[in-house]
């Protein structure tokens, strides 16, 4: 396809090549390390779930026992496989006994690595059967009842109460939504455990728990049948429990997960070593399970200026793409993010937004681009806000975005009311239908504002990536080149949960998930 923006393919290749080198450089580090959250993920995938009598999740209880005994570098798989072999119990029974203070698996005599793996096989098989069943179910529903057309209408529910969320989510689906995201309660991202069971209280959102996933999945399956469209479910594989939540999403058939290689470092002050190791585990799961990940580049523009720093978004999209390649995620599952966040008082701002969005589409032709609505310059003037959202929708249909997180006219006032969502969906449907083929019809003036802008942003992204390649990603983040946020290598939350693997370490899931 000919570039409407007259982008130089050599510059695109150069940027992608830099990003590839950056990701490879990091992968060496990632392969040498593990984390408490990655190990808890392995525990969950081996069938450990539930809580002890003081509500500590059993995956935490198990991993904490290893950590305290200095056995974390050996990994959960080896230690748990060994315990299965030596006790004859299931992984869940073992975790329950540890929780009850009756068993210390670090004190058992050790079998060989091969024997440990052999002992785990029935548990691994069971997990894959469950995940494969969920993948097949999604495929079956998609082919039998179909889906909405792109850009998918993506809305959030955020009542704090999972049962109230169900009412809102089903209403939104009936109004035309294609994707429902259950926003997490504020602060969950920094919890170093995943809460358990159904929850009815949260602030600005609802706890991500496996039971809540199950409740919402069931409700969306029901409404999918009713409206004759498969309704996708989205949650967050991010924060301190990034890979654990990916595993829960795999087991409960989530379709979309927010998951970014560097977002947690920049915006949640999670230690960079921790996040980079965790994102790999989460992404191999996501890749296997047919989940679309959403990266969080849009956030750069809430802390940094959307016009001056547009190239950091593009650069980060390249990096997220290459990390995804290393985790064997198909392009169709790469929901690379960007946003409509320029100051609305900017002259020709619409042209710059359009340029950026079309550029993203041209650079990542098969990706499921996720486009985020205006938030920073939403004011409480709902009338103007509704128009800002309409312009955002116009750029989306014009540039062929895939996942359209709908702007709410009441952004900056409250989490959406039921009719806010209806008005937003109506807005998007109107613009998408009315301008359906505008992108096919319109070409841009050679060397005009739109073409020049895209070329300039791409050039700056390429230069930034060259710099990152030279300095390494860790140093780049320390210098504050993304989102204007500086984070130290040894700072932030969760560093104590990172360790190097020893020679006995194995994680049976990485290879199995990568193989698809």
């Amino acid at each position: 396809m000919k570039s409407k923006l007259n982008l130089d393919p050599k510059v695109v290749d150069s940027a992608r090549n830099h990003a590839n080198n950056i990701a490879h450089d990091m992968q060496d580090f990632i392969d040498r390390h593990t984390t408490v959250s990655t190990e808890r993920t392995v525990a969950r995938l081996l069938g450990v779930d539930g809580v002890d009598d003081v509500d500590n999740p059993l995956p935490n209880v198990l991993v904490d026992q290893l950590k305290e005994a200095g056995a974390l570098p050996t990994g959960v798989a080896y230690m748990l496989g060994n315990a299965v072999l030596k006790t004859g119990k299931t992984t869940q029974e073992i975790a329950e006994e540890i929780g009850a203070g009756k068993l210390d698996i670090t004190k058992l005599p050790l079998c060989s690595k091969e024997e440990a793996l052999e002992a785990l096989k029935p548990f691994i098989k069971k997990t894959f059967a469950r995940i494969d069943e969920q993948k097949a179910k999604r495929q079956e529903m998609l082919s039998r009842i179909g889906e909405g057309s792109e850009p998918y209408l993506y809305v959030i529910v955020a009542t704090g109460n999972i049962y109230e969320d169900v009412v809102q989510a089903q209403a939104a689906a009936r109004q035309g939504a294609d994707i429902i995201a259950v926003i997490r309660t504020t602060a969950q991202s920094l919890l170093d455990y995943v809460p358990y069971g159904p929850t009815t209280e949260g602030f600005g959102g609802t706890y991500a728990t496996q039971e809540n996933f199950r409740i919402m999945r069931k409700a969306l399956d029901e409404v999918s049948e009713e409206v004759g469209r498969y309704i996708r479910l989205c949650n967050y594989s991010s924060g301190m429990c990034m890979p654990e939540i990916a595993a829960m999403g795999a087991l409960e058939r989530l379709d979309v997960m927010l998951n970014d290689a560097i977002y947690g470092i920049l915006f949640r002050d999670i230690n960079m070593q921790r996040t980079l190791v965790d994102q790999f585990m989460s992404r191999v799961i996501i890749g296997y399970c047919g989940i679309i990940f959403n990266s969080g580049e849009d956030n750069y523009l809430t802390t940094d200026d959307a016009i001056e720093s547009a190239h950091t978004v593009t650069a980060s999209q390249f990096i997220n793409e290459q990390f995804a390649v290393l985790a064997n995620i198909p392009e169709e599952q790469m929901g690379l993010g960007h946003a409509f966040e320029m100051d609305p008082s900017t002259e020709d701002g619409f042209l710059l937004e359009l340029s950026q969005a079309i550029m993203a589409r041209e650079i990542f032709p098969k990706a499921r681009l996720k486009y985020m609505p205006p938030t920073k310059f939403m004011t409480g003037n709902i009338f103007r806000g509704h128009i800002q959202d309409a312009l955002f929708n116009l750029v989306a249909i014009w540039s062929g975005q895939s996942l359209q997180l709908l702007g709410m006219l009441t952004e900056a006032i409250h989490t959406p009311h039921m009719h806010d969502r209806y008005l937003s969906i109506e807005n998007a449907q109107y613009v998408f239908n009315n301008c359906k083929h505008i992108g096919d019809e319109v070409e841009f003036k050679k060397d005009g504002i739109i073409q020049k802008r895209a070329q300039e942003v791409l050039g700056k992204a390429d230069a930034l990536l060259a710099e990152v390649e030279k300095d390494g990603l860790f140093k780049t983040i320390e210098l504050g080149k993304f989102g204007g946020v500086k984070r130290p290598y040894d700072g932030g939350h969760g560093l104590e949960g990172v360790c190097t693997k020893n020679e006995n370490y194995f994680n049976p899931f990485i290879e199995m998930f990568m193989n698809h």
Partner: protein
Amino acid sequence: MSEMKTATTVADLTKVKPYGDTLNDGKMELAFTLPVPYGEEAEECAKQYVKKLGFEEPNVTYYKELTPGYTFFVVYGSAQATIDYTQIKVPKVEGEVMDRVACGEWIGENIGRDITVVGASIESDAHTVGIDAIIQMKGFHGHFGLERFKNVVPYNMGSQVPCEELIAKAKEVNADAILVSQTVTQKDIHIMNLTKMVELLEAEGLRDKVILTCGGPRISHELAQELGYDAGFGPGKYAEHVMSFIMQEVKNRGWENKANIADR
């Protein structure tokens, strides 16, 4: 159209009501959802509800089923209630508001030392947009943040900062003022967080040794004062509003030579 009793175009400020296109027509638009099934009964229900709120001539201009059992309405009506505008008193942040350059100069001339502030979005709140708008160099909407002010030393601790950490930082750097940002307001979480901050400061005996301010999209000066803050900054307030208040307060309190908290 309601009956025109007078031809006056001058509002009686002791009896104010909404203006549509004619003085005292009381015209207002409302949009809301009722948990009732869509249909003519729903329309009548909305009409009666708006009447009960004190509107005359309610007119349901649009209604639509959102999902079975829920109906959305747009309703126009003529409000009857009036307010005596002349009796209104609104607490405001006192002092003169100066721009960024004038603030820097004023501090140089009147305080004679740097003013130190620490700010954060506290407790569970993960939003940095408010504190960044005030502190970050770029500021917001063309209003530069405190990092760009002369004679001001700001520390931005970001989001999800526990109150204890913010207070510890204030002590460490001998802050003149603490800036607390709150964006999430669901179930009044911001009130709980803001209250916790005041209580902790009081418990540490620091409440009168630092200027305590808060800000956010749903925060007013009145609310801030009720909660025990010295000032509150809502929408439309930028770094210059915050610093104008703080620097004049430093002077009022006679802290020019009391850069250390221990001396105050």
